[in-house]
């Protein structure tokens, strides 16, 4: 616990740098990542991250110094070039985008490795530490790095806020953006530039491979919680910031632990939890929804069966045994029993010793399902000219979906019918 308070008092300058640096980096790249994710180009971040290497090496060969700004400039140029190349290859040949990404990524990286090893073998003493540019050194951030991170983070955030509307339109409806005269090409370039910026700076903290995660993972996690872009951006930034802090904390308590991978691990865990637990879009809530639909269909089918039996004998409220119900339609027995018990709890049926009977509410609901079924059959035969023996299956499905409004519309449209195509009465 003392470690915890010690860490969060930020009294140690090193802790301050590392934490602040990680947070700035993680949240600003998360914001940019949202746009690349929504444009379905999540993997370009990975490509840029790898393509940075030859730029760094070339800048070093040409300038002979390890001045971070010159190296960054080199990194920026090749990173940017790689994205332009990917676009060019996909638009001018039959190579698909993922192949183009893989190719550009690995070839650029290969060139980078070739140059790097050539530099290393050249015996130039100044070269040591060049490869640290690639593997990240979040734990040894210093004040100088922080200034760069801060500047880039502010730049990225300011640009997103400034061009929020334009970028939003670009992500969701490119054609419309073009048609109302937005400079789509320029905006795309802007987004590319932002991505490259985020990657070039971020790489120094988490390394080549994990940079992709800093862009995509918080954005993908945030996407599951909201349908609004603004909320998504804020959420992604928060998720990024949180994992930045936690990553820094872990490597503070256990000094041998690398900060970057821990940030990625934590952000991935958040993403996994979001995929599973998020309301509406999450996996579990979708499973629940599917189950609810299935039970609804089962219940309505049971009520319908009871109602149809009632129609045959012109007596809606007397007892039917389970066997009688199941002769009309083959529902697995245990399933039918659970359904009936549930209906009883909801007050739609009653259970007596020799069977099940509809209650008044049950009769109304059963009648409605039967009515919808027959209305739909009639609609299909009249308006789509389908043969009357082809319409049953379709009506089986739609009878559970039609809303009361649609029901009124159907009745109106069919001119208040009384008989369905099989000449049975519509209740």
């Amino acid at each position, binding site marked *: 616990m003392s470690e915890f308070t010690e860490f969060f008092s930020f009294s140690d300058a090193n802790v301050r740098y590392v934490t602040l640096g990680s947070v700035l980096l993680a949240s600003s790249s998360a914001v940019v990542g949202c746009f690349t994710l929504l444009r379905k180009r999540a993997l370009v971040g*990975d490509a840029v991250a790898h393509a940075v290497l030859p730029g760094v090496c070339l800048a070093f060969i040409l300038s002979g110094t390890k001045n971070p700004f010159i190296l960054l400039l080199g990194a920026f140029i090749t990173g940017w070039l790689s994205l332009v190349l990917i676009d060019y290859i996909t638009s001018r040949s039959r190579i698909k985008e993922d192949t183009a990404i893989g190719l550009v990524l690995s070839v650029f990286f290969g*060139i980078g490795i070739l140059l790097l090893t050539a530099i290393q073998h050249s015996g130039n003493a100044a070269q040591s530490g060049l490869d640290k540019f690639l593997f990240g050194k979040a734990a040894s951030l210093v004040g100088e790095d922080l200034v760069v991170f801060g500047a880039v983070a502010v730049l990225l955030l300011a640009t997103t806020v400034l061009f929020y509307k334009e970028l939003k339109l670009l992500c969701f409806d490119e054609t419309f953006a073009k048609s109302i005269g937005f400079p789509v090409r320029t905006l795309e370039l802007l987004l590319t530039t932002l991505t490259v910026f985020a990657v070039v700076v971020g790489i120094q903290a988490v390394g080549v491979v994990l940079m992709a995660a800093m862009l995509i993972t918080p954005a993908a996690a945030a996407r599951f919680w909201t349908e609004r872009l603004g909320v998504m951006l804020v959420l992604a930034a928060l998720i990024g910031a949180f994992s930045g802090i936690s990553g820094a904390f872990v490597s503070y308590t256990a000094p041998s632990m690398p900060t970057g991978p821990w940030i*990625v691990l934590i952000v991935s865990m958040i993403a996994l939890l979001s995929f599973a637990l998020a309301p509406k879009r999450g996996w579990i809530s979708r499973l629940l929804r599917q189950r609810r639909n299935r039970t609804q269909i089962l219940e309505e089918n049971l009520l319908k069966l009871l109602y149809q039996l009632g129609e045959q004998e012109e007596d809606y409220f007397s007892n039917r045994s389970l066997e009688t119900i199941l002769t009309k339609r083959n529902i697995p027995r245990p399933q039918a029993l659970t359904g009936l018990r549930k209906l009883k709890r909801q007050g739609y049926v009653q259970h007596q010793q020799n069977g099940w009977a509809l209650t008044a509410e049950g009769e109304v609901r059963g009648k409605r399902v039967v009515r919808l079924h027959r209305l739909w059959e009639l609609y299909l035969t009249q308006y789509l000219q389908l043969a009357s023996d082809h319409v049953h299956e379709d009506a089986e499905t739609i009878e559970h979906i039609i809303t009361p409004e649609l029901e009124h519309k159907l009745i109106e449209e069919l001119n208040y019918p009384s008989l369905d195509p099989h000449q049975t009465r519509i209740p």
Partner: protein
Amino acid sequence: MVGDAISHAVLPGIVIAFLLTGSRDSLPMIIGAGLLGVITTLLIEFFHRYARVQADAAIGITFTWLFAIGIILISVFAGQIDLDQDCVLYGEIAYVPLDLWITESGLSFGPRTLWTLGFVTLLVIGFIVTGYKELFLTAFDPAYAAAIGISTTVWYYLLMTAVSLTTVASFESVGAILVVAFLVGPPATAYLLTDNFKTMLLFSVGIGIVAVVIGYYLAYWLDGSIAGAVATITGLQFALAFVFSPTHGLYFKRRRTQVA
């Protein structure tokens, strides 16, 4: 991109295999990595199909996550593991001749990696020859393949297993990233040169061999990494095919439109 994902994601498999056996023998590592490769494809499928994550994001998240776990495992057991990030990422083919396979009686069979890679090559060729029809059909017309009773899922996972095997076997020599250049580069180049699948297979093998030979001399000349040089040449070949391919190249396409 699945190849890229697998090549990164096998890292924890290699580390775990290493921890369990305590040796750098190739076989347990290949098994560990192969397993992880299959798990990676399963995870990507799962995220994409059941959690409805968009496909590219599912790939990106899965491999970075597994890679991070791998690096953390390395750091945890740093004292016991003779693996480092540089080696994992770049590999060094130049050390291959140094790691000899010598039997207890002192008989030398030459470089160990040569044997592993040779074995994997034979395995892959065998796989393609025996499963050619199925692979061909699932690649081009999955619906038809399913209709005549070929399980597309089984063949997909078999193919992915082959990809992870190849990746793992090569990665000691060329590293996790450059392996992607070898996986993607020659086929993409061949794809621009021909419309026939069999020709494409042969072309890509030929292109790969040429790239290795030229790349080796380039590396020798620059005194740099061999794998990096070969990847560079692969990119160059693609650029040439991209511009000058008689059927799909930019140059001839433009000429054709001018004539027309």
